């Protein structure tokens, strides 16, 4: 369990370090180092979980079970690779004078702060702390969204702040109701501890929990970016610095979904009905379809991919809503591959935008001719995110489709429609970007594409074969969530 | 013995073909009360052509010079499988009526290529039209073949004729339709009036003649002969499939000679009909040929349907 504390302490220390030390030439490097160390810590934690199974800290403050352990490792991993990407990226931003030292200091401090809140969200066992950490994540990132101080970025940050704040407030109301329900069954102390609640979920008052879940779903759903609560998402993703977009898409959304699913488990236990599932399916499907449609109208490349994030989160929410073992497994897998792929894409997109000096897609052309590595990276990443095998996204979408065919066949055509539309929406924009002749004045830049290769490699690996321990975690989590093994 | 007979019959086919052409010409002249050339005029023409020195364009490739042989031998092959005076030939096992159609299209393919080979306007025009008409004629022909084979339940010509023969005189509506459609197809395929005018040169409506405009000498002879052979083939098909009576079933000499006389008689009659129609009708515009042929197709279809509906097989 020490590992868990370590995982939390390192980013805390990092935040303090950056806040106090101010920006230095090697801040980027330090950021990388901190994340690397933390990755090691999380790996250690993972090893512990592998050895001893679910860990519950003294005082039950922290809980690490198969459901969140892989998310923790994923968080550390994406955090590290993004840090690797961000070091040269941010240097370049500073060189072209979009940023100054003060902001870079803020950036690095807040980067660690964000990581801290992410780890807290994942490790905590207390639903109240979960809420606090979620809000904390918003607070940590809101200033990064407006880092460039352009009118757009400030507008985006403001919307992000207000919408998420209001949304999260609703989540707090849901949490209070949860607490109330817990108190009814007289577990006064640690009545907000998830593990306790989960044990006697059966005794909780279903009426209360139903209403609580509505608030929780809407609250955390705002952070997931469920339509129609999604409006902050594309703005925040497109206006903030690209590394921020990468971690927002790759981690924040996942963790919000994680929070919802944790609560859903309680609600299902209490109500013994699919109400929660149906709500999630409805939201998920809506987000999926609308997100797919939005893809067609984009002009800004980062906006494009943030909408694709909405679409994918919609699919995950939908899958969790279906709730069978197959769908749950698929959703867990999809969380992983999506955050890997999407952060990789944002890395390439960031480079592409730097190389073209703009984010508007009409002006980015002929990437493959200009800088093959970036062009191919973007193209392959898009292929992966569009759900083509042998990449992992295909595996999860395949399983989702089959699960839908099993339980709700009449929804399958909608899903199919959405996938088709989303695919067309992505490629109609990406093809002209990567292909064709290079426009004059578009020069190659110094880019670090290792993160992209590693991520895509992992996604490829997950598509071809899921390693044993991960499969075990997935199936255990599946049992935890849906109550039965996938096939 | 049978093989020998088959070879003889094929030779007979080849030999008789010009005679039929001559006879048709003769009838036409008579009907248009002109002075007729002798029946054997076509033989003389062919002989003369074979003696002449063929002149070939500089642009001509090997396609042009080999096509006549290909076309002619394709026709001879076709002749070898169509029963003229006797059924159950050994050769007819080599190819059935569908292959027969195949032979025709083989010949047509090379004829059309030869037309295009020189690169004159006329040649291309002829080939294009020839291919058009044939592509319309083939479905119609197949339809009538269907109508026939559905009742005879074989595509092997000998067996089909044998079947009709043994059935005796049965009035099948399908056969009537098939007969007429086959006649129309034959007219189109052999390039007679009203589809094409064999007696014309350098006319903008010509089809067959346009393709062979560049040919001379023995090449021309072969092609002419092949087309006469084709005419005879269609005639024999019509005569022997629909009115097989008289054809020899045994290989006794008298039955064979009887069969020969019978088929000559039938052909003479058919040729007379053809000549009559050619005197009565005028050549039609190229783009009315499609109506002509779709009518043939319709007839074939009706034949097939009437076989299913009226003759209530099973």
């Amino acid at each position, binding site marked *: 369990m020490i590992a868990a504390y370590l995982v939390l302490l390192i980013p805390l220390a990092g935040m303090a370090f950056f806040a106090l030390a101010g920006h230095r030439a090697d801040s980027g490097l330090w950021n990388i180092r901190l994340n690397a160390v933390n990755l090691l810590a999380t790996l250690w934690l993972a090893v512990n979980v592998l050895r001893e199974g679910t860990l519950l800290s003294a005082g039950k403050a922290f809980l690490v079970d198969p459901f969140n352990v892989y998310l923790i490792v994923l968080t550390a991993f994406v955090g590290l690779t993004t840090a690797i990407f961000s070091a040269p990226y941010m240097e370049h931003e500073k060189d072209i004078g979009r940023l100054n030292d003060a902001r870079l200091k803020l950036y690095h401090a807040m980067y660690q702060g964000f990581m801290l809140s992410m780890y807290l969200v994942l490790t905590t066992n207390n639903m*109240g702390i979960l809420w606090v950490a979620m809000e904390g994540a918003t607070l940590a990132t809101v200033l990064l969204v407006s880092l460039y101080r352009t009118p*757009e970025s400030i507008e985006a940050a*403001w919307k992000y*702040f207000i919408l998420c704040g209001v949304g999260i407030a609703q989540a707090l109301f849901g949490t209070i109701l949860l607490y*109330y329900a817990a108190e009814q069954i007289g577990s006064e102390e640690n*009545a*907000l501890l998830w593990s306790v609640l989960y044990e006697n979920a059966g005794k909780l008052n279903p009426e209360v929990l139903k209403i609580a879940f509505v608030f929780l779903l809407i609250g955390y759903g705002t952070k997931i970016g469920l339509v129609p609560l999604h409006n902050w998402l594309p703005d925040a993703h497109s206006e903030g610095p690209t590394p921020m977009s990468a971690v927002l898409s790759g981690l924040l959304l996942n963790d919000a979904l994680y929070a919802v699913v944790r609560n859903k488990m309680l609600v299902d236990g209490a109500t013994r009905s699919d109400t929660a599932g149906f709500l999630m399916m409805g939201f998920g499907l809506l987000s999926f379809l609308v997100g797919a449609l939005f893809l067609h109208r984009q002009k800004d490349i980062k906006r494009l991919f943030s909408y694709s994030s909405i679409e994918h989160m919609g699919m995950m929410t939908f899958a969790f809503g279906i709730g069978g073992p197959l769908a749950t497994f698929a959703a867990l897998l999809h969380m992983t591959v999506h955050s890997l792929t999407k952060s990789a894409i944002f890395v390439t997109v960031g480079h592409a935008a730097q190389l073209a000096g703009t984010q508007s897609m009409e002006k980015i052309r002929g990437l493959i001719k200009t800088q093959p590595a970036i062009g191919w990276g973007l193209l392959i990443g898009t292929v992966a995110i569009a759900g083509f095998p042998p990449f992992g996204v295909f595996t999860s979408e395949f399983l989702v489709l089959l699960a839908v065919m099993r339980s709700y066949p009449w929804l399958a055509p909608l899903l199919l429609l959405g996938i088709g539309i989303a695919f067309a929406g992505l490629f109609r924009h990406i093809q002209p970007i990567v292909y064709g002749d290079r426009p004059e004045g578009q020069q190659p830049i110094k880019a670090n594409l290792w993160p992209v290769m590693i991520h895509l490699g992992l996604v490829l690996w997950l598509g071809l074969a899921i390693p044993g321990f991960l499969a075990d975690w997935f199936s255990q989590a599946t049992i935890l969530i849906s109550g039965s093994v996938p096939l | 013995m049978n093989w020998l007979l088959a070879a003889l019959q094929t030779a007979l086919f080849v030999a008789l073909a010009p005679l039929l052409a001559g006879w048709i010409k003769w009838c036409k002249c008579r009907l248009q009360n002109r002075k007729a050339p002798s029946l054997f005029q076509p033989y003389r023409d062919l002989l003369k052509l074979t003696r002449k020195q063929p002149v070939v364009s500089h642009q001509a490739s090997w396609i042009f010079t080999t096509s006549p042989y290909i076309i002619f031998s394709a026709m001879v092959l076709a002749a070898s499988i169509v029963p003229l005076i006797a059924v159950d030939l050994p050769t007819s096992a080599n190819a059935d009526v569908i292959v027969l159609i195949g032979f025709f299209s083989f010949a047509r393919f090379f004829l059309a290529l030869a037309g295009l080979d020189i690169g004159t306007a006329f040649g291309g025009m002829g080939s294009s039209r020839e291919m058009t008409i044939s592509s319309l004629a083939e479905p119609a022909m197949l339809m009538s073949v269907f109508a026939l084979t559905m009742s005879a339940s074989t595509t092997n010509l000998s067996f089909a004729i044998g079947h009709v023969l043994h059935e005796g005189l049965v009035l099948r509506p399908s056969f009537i339709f098939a007969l007429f459609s086959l006649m129309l197809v034959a007219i189109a395929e052999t390039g007679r009036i009203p589809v094409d005018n064999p007696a014309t040169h350098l006319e903008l409506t010509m089809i067959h003649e346009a393709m062979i405009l560049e040919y001379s000498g023995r090449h021309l002879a072969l092609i002419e002969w092949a087309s006469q052979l084709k005419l005879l083939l269609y005639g024999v098909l019509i005569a022997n499939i629909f009115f097989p009576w008289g054809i020899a079933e045994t290989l006794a000499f008298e039955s064979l000679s009887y069969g020969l006389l019978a088929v000559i008689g039938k052909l003479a009659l058919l040729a007379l009909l053809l000549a009559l129609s050619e005197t009565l009708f005028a050549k039609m515009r190229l783009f009315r040929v499609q109506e002509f042929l779709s009518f043939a197709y319709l007839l074939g279809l009706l034949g097939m349907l009437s076989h299913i509906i009226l003759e209530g097989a099973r």
Partner: protein
Amino acid sequence: MNIGQLDFYTQAILSLAALVGLTSFLMLGQGRLLRLVFVFAVQGLLLALTTAVAAYSLNIPHLYISAALTLILKVIVIPWMLRRLALQMNIHRDVEALKNNTAVMLGGASLMLFSYYILHPIVQTSSIVMLNALAVSLSVMLLGMLLMISHRQAVAHVVGFMSIENGLFFAAVVATHGMPMVVELGVAFDVLIAAVLFGIFFFHIRTSIDSLDVDLLNRLSEVDK
């Protein structure tokens, strides 16, 4: 049951609840910033009072702490900060013309009804009388959102946001006698940070669109212009 049979403290809390509800109505109808902030402060005060009373009547000591937190944050710090900002940016004079105010008011009233109707099943399940006030807290939340929807001033949005928080605290008090301490502290901390960030953002917005009218923040949209 009849309120007459309840003990004094409960009566007090219920009436305070009524007053809290009233304050959110007042805010909803308020076009002048400074008054808005003032009413917000009053609401905070009422909330603090409620908490204190609850703490005393049920003698739950840690509720005193949250009462104190509320007093400091919601009554003193945040209103003072907002007021100062308003004065600095000298927007304290301009009055926001609220469209179809009465309709909004009626909507607010029906919201109260709605929240009662929603929470009815819960209220039925328990014997705690204070729970009746839960409906009020929910409606305070909803009214806070309505406030944000109906006002165009960024400051008003902050006030609405904070009053939503008030509603939450109120709910926590009446339903569950406050959250666990750690959560209380965390929430308070978040609120503080949020307030500070709001302060920062006012200046950014002001510099970028030299106004605090959020309707002018509409650069990022999907509607083809």
